[in-house]
């Protein structure tokens, strides 16, 4: 059993099997887990906002779907993974409060998911599974060894995607 590496909000990190990587309490943010199934090198990004171009102060790379995913891939490949073998799983993008459903501006969870999928598609990375939307927070743990993406939520059974 390896270690479990923690990733905070607007943060990213990589890990190598047998280690796992986790981020706690994803709300409207999206967690993006990427791995190379052969070298078993992987990583996790916890992005907050869809697009670095929409914001003026956008130097915080892991904060945005577009820049965060690119940086995560760069680090995974730098560690020795093959770029063309990378696959992804994503989770999060919830609407935590009911008012977020009425105001389209506030549907940032949906926008985060859409931006994440768009970026992954542009980069030609296949999304194997996703658990997104709804109205509850998620804690996720990713194991690059198996590709298992474990999702925990309050008052719900644990699931693996």
């Amino acid at each position: 059993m390896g270690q479990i590496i923690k990733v905070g909000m607007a943060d990213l990190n990589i890990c190598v099997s047998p280690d796992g990587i986790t981020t706690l309490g994803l709300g409207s943010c999206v967690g993006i887990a990427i791995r190379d199934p052969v070298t078993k090198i992987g990583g996790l990004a916890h992005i907050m906002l869809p697009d670095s171009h929409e914001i003026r102060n956008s130097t915080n790379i892991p904060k945005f779907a577009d820049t965060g995913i690119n940086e995560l891939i760069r680090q995974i490949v730098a560690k020795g993974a093959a770029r063309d073998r990378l696959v992804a799983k994503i989770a999060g993008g919830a609407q935590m409060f009911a008012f977020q459903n009425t105001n389209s501006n506030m549907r940032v969870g949906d926008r985060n998911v859409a931006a994440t999928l768009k970026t992954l598609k542009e980069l030609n990375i296949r999304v194997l599974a996703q658990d997104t939307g709804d109205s509850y927070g998620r804690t996720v743990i990713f194991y690059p060894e198996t590709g298992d993406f474990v999702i925990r939520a309050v008052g719900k059974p644990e699931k693996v995607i």
Partner: protein
Amino acid sequence: MSEMNLDDLSNQYFDVLKELGNIGAGNATTALAQMLNSKVDMSVPQVRLLEFKDVGDLMGGADQIMAGIYLSVEGDINGSIMFLVGIQEARHLVNKLMMQDSESQEFTDIELSALKEVGNIITGSYLNSLSTMTSLKMIPSIPYVTVDMAGAILSVPAIEFGMMGDKILLIETQFFDEIKLSGYFILLPDLEGYKKILTSLGISNI
């Protein structure tokens, strides 16, 4: 002050926010005492400016279960205000208000509604004091409540802060009645709102 960024706050500005937090939380404590019909004490609030990734740790971990009450604010200031308490503390408040003795980790609809009301009154009195001090109109929306992991609840204000900078500003207050209650206020005016608040307090060069 054309471009303002929360990340480089001056000490003076920080002191002003601390004082606003102090007065606001004081008023909120009085309101809470009246509602619960008991004596409630308060410690001096801590104003913190945190990196997003450190926010969860302050509250005992991003997976701590908490109750969050959120109201949007309109008027002279546009933005939102949020109040967070731990699930045990939320349970204590609800029990006291409903004169019951439940230990359930889950809240019924009527209990959630009571929790909303607690949040409504606490944040309302907070806004009131801020509004009186600044002579700015602040009209809160109806309250929205959720019980979930701290990180997930905080993602909502964090994302709003995230559009302005890389840090989140929160005010930690401890209330005491029979037990110690740690509550967190997150006041979130848009950038225009920060300017207005400071200008109305006579602080222009920060």
